[in-house]
């Protein structure tokens, strides 16, 4: 396994230096990215992360529930058009938030036990210890 890893790294290094050697004596120029004839691309036209995941987000639409607001171009020379999509964290919004809110509500109902009187707190501990003692005794 180590030999294979070493071989893979050696292949990488070999190809790296081979490429450097091949290009050393040749013309290497820089130009614009291939733009299919459109000469004024702007940074805003880049493919975004949401464009990248769009196919799989569409397939998971039933679970992801992407919000989408669109104003399509109207008329022959439209002045404006817009599209906004926003994908919530479905599990946070639909599962965990309601679940934890429910748990918080439930424990809120037990707040009468938390009153600040130390003597009663010690009583709780004593009851708990007694209960454990009986439980332990029952197990033996």
């Amino acid at each position: 396994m180590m030999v294979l890893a070493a071989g893979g790294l050696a292949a990488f290094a070999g190809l790296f230096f081979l490429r450097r050697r091949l290009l050393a004596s040749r013309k290497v120029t820089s130009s614009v990215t291939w733009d299919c004839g459109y000469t004024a691309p702007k940074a805003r036209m880049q493919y975004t992360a949401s464009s990248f995941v769009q196919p799989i987000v569409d397939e998971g639409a039933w679970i992801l529930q992407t919000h989408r607001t669109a104003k399509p171009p109207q008329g022959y020379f439209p002045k404006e058009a817009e599209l906004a999509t926003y994908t919530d964290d479905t599990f946070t919004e639909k599962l965990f938030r309601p679940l934890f809110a429910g748990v918080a509500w439930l424990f809120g109902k037990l707040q009468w036990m938390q009153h600040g009187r130390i003597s009663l707190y010690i009583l709780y501990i004593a009851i708990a210890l007694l209960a454990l003692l009986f439980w332990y005794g029952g197990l033996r």
Partner: protein
Amino acid sequence: MSLSFLFRLIFFIASLLAAPLLLGLIVRVKSFFAGRKGQPLLQPYYDLQRLWRKGAVYSRSTSPIFYLAPIISLAAILAALALLPLPGYGALFSFSGDLILFAYLFGLVRFVTILAALDTASSFEGMGASREAHFAIFAEVAFFITLATLARFTGSLSLSTIFENQLVQINYAYSPALALLVVSLFVVMLAENCRIPVDDPTTHLELTMIHEVMVLDHSGPDFAFILYGAALKLWIWATFIALVVISSFPAPTWLQPLVALGVIVLIGVLIGVVESTMARLRLTHVPQLLIGASVLSLLSFIILR
């Protein structure tokens, strides 16, 4: 050095030399169907030689990722080739679990290719990268179910020991299930290697391309690395299918590499026939095709135990 090791080494080197020939064969089959004389069988070698001699042009928006990607992907494909068993004799390197590495070396190839495509900041290349990643999700499922089937059936996690003994030695009734695996692998191979009906390697319209558009900005030796890597990848896939096919027919060990070579040629012809007789699928239907392949693999997973 044992004789078996020598054979494996010869297989590795022969694969390096012969891989582009398979592409040439496919093009010849397609020309035959189109009634053309077609390009020479060695045309892929001439193309590689031409690119090898050229300089390069780099986009001003690219970073070192862009020129490292072809190098990393070719190195990863070479490592995958070293894990590929010579039918009947095993691979140059093998260890328990190497089939996971085998699958994810191709994952690494895809990952760096996607990175390089996004690095150019071109919308075309971003779109191609998006499609590539999308289809890979489904292709990977089908391939992993296939690997799981083979691993469970043979009780081995190494490609070399999976194909060490012929899979049907135990019972001929297993052959149909292996045939299902072969069909599934064939579909995944077409998707992984950007062939029709998933992608068209000869298209010239950026909007319809998948893989070709991702490497649009590469030139010179970088592009030669990519084309050669693609040829090797197709060769590896064809050999992998040949390994499953020949394990369904009994043959003496010394004959297995020759039978496998016959199967590889047959696969080349079959790809040519598929490409000549079919159009591309709509992009939205490709996942269905790949899920279909996964279902075939799953069926075979249930049958083979």
